[in-house]
């Protein structure tokens, strides 16, 4: 916290950062945009007083700006030589927090393990709760850059907020590694500081599409999406993949803010598909599968990584969602059968958090590991870390940590999971798995 003593002797707390003028808004209200209450004085008087008030406010904000930057150096941040700050940004308390808390815990675990080795440069871990909303995320990112002086950001978790936050990071020259932003367009912006440790939606959509036609043998597929930056492209890719494999398709849309999907349910019922794919998040997926089953639609229900959460089954109620298949570019492997590294991670995660590994926890761990590798190699400046990330090539839990020049992971498989009650056991690789 930073205290600033105003000329008048009043104290103002918590100045957001250098150059941020807190009181500048006063100048506008004072200039007469908001009328004074009637009977407050003569017209001429009011005008003169307002001008004085306005200049006063401008002067005041100038003072604030100077004093804030004067004391900005010692407030928080990672200015000292023995530690750097890595941020984590995502929806930690909002509707989709269930798929952001696991990667946060994975990342925290990696950093804790690293700090426990007593390294020369320790890492501080700081979280930013964007609630998945771009308009909340951007100011947080600015705070992270100017006040906390982070050298790297794990996140933002979702694609929508990434679209808005990554340009800010680009300008601040701070590298980011998202554990879960899968929108394919993100890596096509020419961003130099953007990375992700998860396969994008094109990879995911074609993987799930292949599974629908090969693994399930479906001939008629209904694709529903929520018109979001995540759900729409994913649904479109699945549709084009199954179409290319010879299936007939129809597309419907739901409004994620509504609770009644009966119009879409009626369309699905009339189409009588073998499989229904939903591109969107678990809160809506649960309601959709419930309403489909209530209407007597028995087709296999599938969805993408946004729905890989026990919240889907809970939202659908009881065992209604059983047998639904969720595809994901992520590896969730609590029993650790995929690799020794996966086993070691799962055990450490369970010991610390008393829960099994969940969605993107391994990817969160790997994202943090990438930053740790950079810092171990002696890089403590954001730009040096970014340079190191372009050549990093170390084994991770979910995959080899290695990025293409656009920031996508060099290799990524799509895995499918089947809902059984509140659990989501791994079925296998989408290319080869079969379900009846």
């Amino acid at each position, binding site marked *: 916290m930073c205290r600033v003593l105003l000329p008048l002797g009043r104290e103002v707390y918590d100045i957001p950062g250098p150059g941020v003028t807190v009181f500048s808004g006063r100048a506008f209200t004072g200039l007469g945009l908001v009328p004074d209450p009637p009977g407050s004085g003569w017209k001429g008087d009011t005008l003169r007083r307002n001008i004085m008030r306005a200049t006063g406010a401008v002067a005041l904000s100038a003072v604030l700006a100077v004093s804030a930057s004067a004391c900005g150096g010692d407030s928080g941040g990672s200015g000292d030589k023995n530690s750097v700050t890595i941020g984590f940004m995502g929806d930690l308390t909002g509707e989709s927090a269930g798929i952001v808390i696991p990667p946060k815990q994975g990342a925290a675990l990696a950093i804790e393990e690293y700090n426990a080795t007593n390294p020369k440069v320790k890492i501080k871990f700081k979280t930013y709760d964007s*609630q998945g909303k771009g308009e909340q995320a951007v100011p947080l990112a600015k705070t992270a850059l100017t006040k906390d002086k982070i050298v790297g950001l794990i996140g933002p978790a979702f694609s929508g907020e990434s679209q808005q936050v990554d340009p800010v990071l680009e300008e601040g020259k701070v590298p980011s590694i998202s554990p879960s932003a899968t929108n394919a367009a993100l890596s096509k912006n020419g961003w130099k500081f953007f990375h992700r440790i998860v396969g994008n939606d094109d990879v995911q959509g074609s993987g799930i599409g292949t599974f629908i036609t090969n693994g399930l043998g479906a001939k008629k597929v209904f694709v529903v999406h929520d018109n979001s930056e995540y759900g729409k492209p994913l649904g479109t890719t699945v549709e084009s993949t199954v179409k290319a494999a010879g299936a007939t398709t129809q597309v419907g849309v739901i409004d994620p803010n*509504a609770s009644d999907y*009966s119009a879409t349910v009626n369309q699905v019922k009339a189409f009588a598909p073998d499989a229904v794919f939903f591109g969107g998040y678990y809160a809506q997926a649960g309601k959709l599968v419930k309403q489909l089953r209530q209407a007597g639609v028995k087709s296999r229900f599938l969805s993408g990584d946004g729905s890989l959460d026990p919240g889907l089954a*809970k939202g659908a109620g*009881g065992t209604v969602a059983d047998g639904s298949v969720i595809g994901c570019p992520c590896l969730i492997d609590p029993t650790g059968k995929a690799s020794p590294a996966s086993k070691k991670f799962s055990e450490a995660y369970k010991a610390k958090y008393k829960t099994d590994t969940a969605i993107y926890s391994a990817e969160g761990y790997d994202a943090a590991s990438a930053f740790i590798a950079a810092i171990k190699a002696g890089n403590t400046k954001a730009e040096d870390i970014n340079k190191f990330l372009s050549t990093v090539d170390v084994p991770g839990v979910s995959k080899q940590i290695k990025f293409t020049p656009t920031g996508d992971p060099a290799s990524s498989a799509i895995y499918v999971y089947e809902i059984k009650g509140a659990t989501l056991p791994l079925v296998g690789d989408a290319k080869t798995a079969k379900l009846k």
Partner: protein
Amino acid sequence: MQNFLDQFWPSTVDGLSLGAIYALVALGYTMVYGVLRLINFAHSEIFMIGTFAVVGAVEALGINSPVGTLALIGLIVVLAVVAAVAAGGSAVLLELVAYRPLRRSGGSRLAALISAIGASLFLQQLFAIVVIPRFFDRPLAGGHLPVQSNDFTDPVNLFSIGSVDFRSDKVIIFVGALLMMVALDQFVSRTRLGRGIRATAQDPETAVLMGVNIDRIVMATFALGGAMAGVAAALYMMRFEETVYTVGFLLGIKAFTAAVLGGIGNLRGALIGGMALGLLEMYGSSIFGAEWRDVVAFSVLVLVLMFRPTGILGESLQRARA
């Protein structure tokens, strides 16, 4: 267009059951407007409180698995009473805290409107931050996540005409809402209190001169409107079994639209408006796709208001008596 023809009858059933809930919520907007000439924007949160009352009541009754259709009707009556008391009570409290002081001090209608919006945001956040985490204990992030009630309905198909299914939950919603509306209409046109409400709606000053206690009338109006929202909440929960602190937001806008469409201030207008809006949404989405649902509904609203500025049935509570 082919879709529209194929799905005409299923859309009609869905539209009517959805419209019935809009209509019940719309009654609250319309009554308060009729009496106070005030849009009570916090009414959507009154509905929200009703849904949480249902979640609590289902848990308190110890119901944890779907009940049969007959038992369901009895259960819905109980839940509707609980929700109506909770929602009606909150509506009265709202009037006492947010509106009455403003009326007393002669504040403008605009001030009351701002107060309404403030109360709406206050109630939403109160639930998200305090009430849901504390009383509807849910793991992880708590208050902002949707809350599921215990499973208490398993809708069965009552009967089918052709390919059109009449599911128990949809039928109960439609019939229940209709009954409530007839009851309210009779109450307003036949009882002493109802006469007071109508008199106040017609001309508050004369009503006072004739010995009507305005404060009592306003309170009764809020209580009745809130109770209707509570019943709507019970019916809604039977259908969806899930709620969230912002559940009232979209539904409130829709219900307010329904009230305007039917003629705000007019009880029967709320019924017509609600049903019309429900049907429009369903037909609109079967023709143009579900993403156009609101566009279609609101375009029709604008068209109707261009030719009938006071809505389908016209304004004002007093004429509702017919």
